[in-house]
């Protein structure tokens, strides 16, 4: 990671923290604004000293525009699998067949892999247990969740968003 990258990371961290502070506080007097700026700078300083700025892409650069449609798609998937798991729970026979499977992830950056693994966990019925290189170990409640992951739609969407973040 070059010096310019680290600088860009810090700037994007400071901007996102400042926007969050202003959204949450709702106070706009000069005293409180300067106190907020001070706390933002302290947090940015501490997290850079703790080497927490380790993503291989800056937060603001990659994951805003392209991931908004992905978020809507993910919410629809979450609702669908929620209904499926609810029906399994309410069924008196409890029709589950839990299984451990390995799923390929084609993302290159760590952050995109984490987003993929978190999306898998977020949809009920599948939980990502281990992330090892380009393979994610998934615990699934039923075959339906495994089949849906094996089609690779979610994987492909994240990889596309990662490959061309601005379009």
């Amino acid at each position: 990671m070059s010096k310019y990258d680290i600088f860009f990371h810090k700037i994007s961290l400071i901007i996102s923290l400042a926007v969050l502070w202003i959204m949450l506080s709702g106070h706009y007097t000069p005293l409180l604004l300067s106190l907020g700026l001070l706390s933002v700078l302290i947090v940015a300083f501490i997290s850079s000293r703790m080497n927490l700025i380790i993503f291989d892409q800056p937060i603001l650069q990659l994951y805003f525009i392209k991931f908004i449609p992905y978020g809507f798609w993910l919410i629809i998937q979450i609702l669908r699998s929620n209904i499926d798991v609810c029906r399994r729970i309410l069924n008196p026979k409890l029709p589950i067949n839990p299984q451990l499977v390995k799923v390929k992830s084609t993302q290159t950056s760590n952050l995109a892999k984490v987003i993929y693994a978190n999306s898998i966990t977020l949809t009920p019925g599948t939980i990502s247990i281990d992330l090892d290189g380009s393979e994610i170990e998934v615990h699934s409640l039923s075959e339906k969740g495994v089949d849906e992951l094996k089609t690779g739609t979610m994987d492909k969407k994240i990889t596309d968003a990662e490959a061309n973040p601005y379009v």
Partner: protein
Amino acid sequence: MDVLNIVSGVFIIVGSLSIIVGLLGVYRMPDFFTRLHAASIIDTLGAMLILFGLIMHQGLSMISLKLFLILVFILITTPTAAHALAKSALHGNLKPVTDDDCS
């Protein structure tokens, strides 16, 4: 009473019902990993519907923006917590129940 209030009330009630379904699932499931699946209903559907209902009840304001932020942070942190639980359970040699044990 206007329509928005009724709709937000429906959202909150359905969210509460889905939390009850999730709790029932935690009771009925056979082992730790399958219980995590049931609990993730509470995290996603329950939290989403209730917070969405509250946002609709509030209308567009600073408070509904904060509620939306709460929703975003819940949706980021709960899968992380579920993953940490599952991973530590697997590394603690807790074997997941497989297909053969169930049937």
